[in-house]
């Protein structure tokens, strides 16, 4: 369940980017998660829902793109 701490990192990164852009709401978040990283995408998606519920990323759609390596990265976000 370390996915919860990773999800908290996702939310921190996303909220900071949204604030910088003056966004009111985050529509979707795209992550790159490597096949060799220590992440279970389904657990991460579930934990994200919980971690995001009090901020501007509440209800945002999480899209996880699997990549071949070790990376765990927020690639981009869609904002209003």
């Amino acid at each position, binding site marked *: *369940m*370390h996915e*919860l*701490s*990773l999800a908290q*990192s*996702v939310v*921190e*990164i*996303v909220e900071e*980017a949204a604030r910088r*852009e003056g*966004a009111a709401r985050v*529509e*979707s978040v795209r*992550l790159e998660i490597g096949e060799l*990283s*220590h*992440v279970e995408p389904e657990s991460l998606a579930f934990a994200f829902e919980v971690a995001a519920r009090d901020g501007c990323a509440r209800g945002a759609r999480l899209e996880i793109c699997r990549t071949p390596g070790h*990376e*765990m*990265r*927020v*690639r*981009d*976000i*869609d*904002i*209003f």
Partner: protein
Amino acid sequence: MCTTCGCEHSHDHPHDHAHLDPRTVRVERDLLEKNDALAAQVRRHLAGRGIFAVNLVSSPGSGKTTLLVKTIEALRGRRELGVIEGDQETSRDAERIRAAGARAVQVNTGQGCHLDAGMVGHALEHLAPAAGSVLMIENVGNLVCPAAFDLGESARVVVLSVTEGDDKPLKYPGIFRGSQLMLINKVDLLPYVEFDAARCVEYARRVNPGIRTIALSAAKGQGMAEWLDWIEGGLRGRPLASADAWTAA
């Protein structure tokens, strides 16, 4: 085209209609960047003081705390050893370590299933280990979650006891891949269990060809000399991992 919002119509502005399309912003930031930055800070701090720090990982019950107690007893009078104890709850392990005569800081992770570099950084402020000492960081007993988190350690050591399955390296490859040394503990129990130590080493090498292995019994003392020698080597900057032949205790 409206140049403010890019919509495909023309009209007189002021532009106060709702924008229905979201815009995409590139972020490109690593999920572990905060942890990794703190880990780098910890690593610099420890390296500057010549401290050899070991991140000890295993499943619960592999004998990490007993190994630490025996290591403290063996190093008494020769090397200072400090311990950061990670558990979800209680300070029982830190108390065992203090009773053995070493300084210890207990970190309770609550619901957390692993230590992170921030916790280790805070614990170091309290522990303030001496220059040239050994720092043992006993991670939360878990073969999955600690694998992702760099603590700023000099080496990661995975402990596997013979009362577990010898195929654990294949089932939890992440933690074995990231470790420089595998300790096979409780080898005094080998006659009573199905554990095949040679097969376990072969599996570990399959996921991490450079991993070094020491078979030992912390409780009975077999193999402890080799473990202490590895620690001393770490303090002197000897290579920590290698594919050299392993020796059964």
